[in-house]
């Protein structure tokens, strides 16, 4: 079967700009800050079907709060969020360099997306469980997870809490409400739903929050998780972090030119919120709204956090190969740290010198953690006992690993 290729009309979406082109974002459909009304949490879903096509924003360009989507904040909450985000950024910068120095194999930054872990981490309860992606270390930062443990995990050294078994940054921290990560994208989205159903089954009002990248919404896992969440009215908040890119692939390949990711909620008859992910207060308010629904038995909410992946995908990536190098700096919704800082300054609760002090203190904390980690050893210099390779395959080892340990002589 041959054919005249020139007549082909298979449509393949392309982003509006590539390296060398002037940056263009196409139609982002940004609602003005404050323009979207906040419905009651028990509003029937048919009344909410326009929400996914709007963008929930609370901070205007001057850093002032506008509109009805206001988070319910305790004293110091915003400062806590700022600290976690600034710490995340400092940690990321340092670990990226550490990888470049050959001290570990791999790293991934979350620059631009620090609000998405930090804010829900603070807005949710201790008993709630987060099912993260690999770009959510800010959740742990907000809950004061020891930096040393992060560093040791990244170095796979003798003190690695995961015993050298996992790729750097694929943390697990049950006590901090942070579910075990893995390299496969998408395959834990449904675990969040199962966890939430277990809580409902027990009659406990803890909830789960699950995350998935916009690129990964294409996986069947996404759909199956939403179907279960909807059918069993699971107490779960399901979040799409739409950072516009999936490695080198723009969001249009996941369908962004056809509709919004929040609109996928309509397929399951649950509310879908589209939220400015660089607006800490909007993220907070949306998380609280969805969490309140979940906790009171009203079921799942899908939230699209609209943001931008300001750096490369990982240490293995060079984004200059597929997008204009100044695209990040032109993102129309700015930077979440800067915007929160501006808001806090506008509130009179923050100033440049306190910010500088914060940056100094997180840098020091990161330095100390790295120093400790290096003292234990970087990748290859130090590792847990080789016995650990053979542990934990099952609860009790079977003859195979026992024999094989023997072959290795341990």
């Amino acid at each position, binding site marked *: 079967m041959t054919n005249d290729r020139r007549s082909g009309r298979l449509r393949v979406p392309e982003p509006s700009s590539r390296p060398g082109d002037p940056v263009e974002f196409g139609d982002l459909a940004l609602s003005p800050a404050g323009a979207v009304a906040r419905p009651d949490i028990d509003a029937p879903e048919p009344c909410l079907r326009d929400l996914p096509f709007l963008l929930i924003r609370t901070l205007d360009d001057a850093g002032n709060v506008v509109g009805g989507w206001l988070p319910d904040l305790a004293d110091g909450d915003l400062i806590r969020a700022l600290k976690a985000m600034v710490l995340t950024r400092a940690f990321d910068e340092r670990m990226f360099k550490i990888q470049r120095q050959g001290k570990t194999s791999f790293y991934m930054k979350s620059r631009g997306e620090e609000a998405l872990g930090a804010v829900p981490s603070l807005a949710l309860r201790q008993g709630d469980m987060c099912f993260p992606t690999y770009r959510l270390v800010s959740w742990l930062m907000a809950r004061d997870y020891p930096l040393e443990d992060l560093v040791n995990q990244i170095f796979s050294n003798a003190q690695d*809490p995961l015993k050298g078994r996992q790729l750097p940054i694929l943390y697990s921290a049950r006590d901090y409400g942070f579910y075990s990560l893995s390299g496969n994208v998408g*395959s834990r989205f*449904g675990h969040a739903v*199962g966890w939430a159903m277990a809580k409902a*089954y027990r009659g406990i009002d803890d909830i789960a929050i699950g995350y998935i990248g916009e690129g990964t919404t294409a996986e069947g896992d996404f759909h199956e998780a939403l179907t279960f969440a909807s059918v069993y009215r699971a107490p779960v908040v399901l979040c799409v972090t739409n950072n516009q890119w999936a490695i080198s692939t723009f969001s249009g390949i996941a369908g962004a030119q056809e509709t919004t990711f929040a609109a996928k909620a309509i397929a399951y008859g649950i509310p879908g919120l589209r939220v400015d992910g660089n607006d800490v207060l909007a993220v907070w308010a949306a998380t609280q709204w969805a969490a309140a629904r979940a906790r009171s038995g009203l079921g799942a909410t899908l939230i699209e956090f609209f943001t931008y992946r300001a750096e490369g995908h990982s240490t293995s990536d060079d984004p200059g190969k597929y997008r204009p190098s100044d695209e990040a700096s032109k993102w129309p919704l700015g930077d979440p740290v800067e915007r929160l800082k501006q808001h806090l300054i506008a509130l009179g609760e923050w100033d440049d010198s306190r910010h500088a002090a914060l940056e100094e203190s997180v840098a020091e904390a990161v330095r100390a953690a790295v120093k400790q980690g290096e003292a234990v050893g970087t990748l290859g210099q130090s590792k847990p006992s080789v016995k650990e390779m053979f542990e934990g395959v099952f609860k009790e080892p079977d003859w195979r690993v026992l024999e094989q340990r023997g072959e290795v002589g341990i």
Partner: protein
Amino acid sequence: MAVMNMIQALNSALDTMLARDPDVLIFGEDVGYFGGVFRVTDKLQEKHGLDRCFDAPIAEGGIVATAIGMGAEGLRPVVEIQFADYILPAYDQLVSEAARLRYRSNGEFTAPITVRSPYGGGIFGGQTHSQSPEAIFAHITGLKTVIPSTPYDAKGLLIAAIECDDPVIFLEPKRIYNGPFDGRHGQALTSWAQHPAAQVPEDHYSIALGKAAIVREGADVTVLAYGTMVHVALAGIADAGVDAELIDLRSIVPLDVDAIVASVKKTGRCVIVHEASRFGGFGGELSALVTERCFYHLKAPTQRVAGWDTPYPHAFEWDYFPGPDRVAKALAHVMEV
């Protein structure tokens, strides 16, 4: 004690565990009100409540993913995949998640789930209601795979699987749900009633995973089998008239390698029987283990009796199925050489 067929024994295991442990719950396609297309969950919803045995969307990956999330939280979900042929959409969840969760999280999260699924042929189910996928699970580090061959074992092993803190694939040989089929398809169906292993305690008991059963002692050749093939092998041994030792593996992971090695060292010969296609099947592992560990005791090469390397064909079911004649032929062959 009551006389039970395998379906009743499995139902009794589930009933027992639902009554005993509030962390146990069951879901899967059609398992709720209806009680499952093979009736294994019959009346369990009525007896234990809507939220303890309920229908699931047709999404095997989603079923297993949901179970893993529940298991991580602390429950012990038991899910049914309607046919083992339909377990494949859940394969990624089983391999990448269930099997690896304990290891990668250093035990912070585990997946104490049981995935039950009717498998195997001999029911004119055609290509997609007949397959035996055990080999694709046996290779996966972190998964246990259990296959009973009698009602007594079915209940005891299923309870052990549910109580196990690791993920277990529990494959139910559907051809012997109602009776101990020996592969002679022309003959009238025998029921479990006459079989000693149909005497099943109504209460809780469990059979340790990883312990094979010696179904028949013998001196001349060891036959390794599991599931339906245990009964077929017995018939093949009778046909061949050899003094064979028949071992029912009961679980292929963990595998009772000691029982295998002891037997083959004694008999010096080994025939391996499974219904799955031969190439790349679990018989290869068994053959390799036997060669590696019993080489100097072997009087003849190990032989494999298995399904052909074709899909499972509807009209040719009995040409495909490794029946007693093929077992007998292999036995005769190893005894000859």
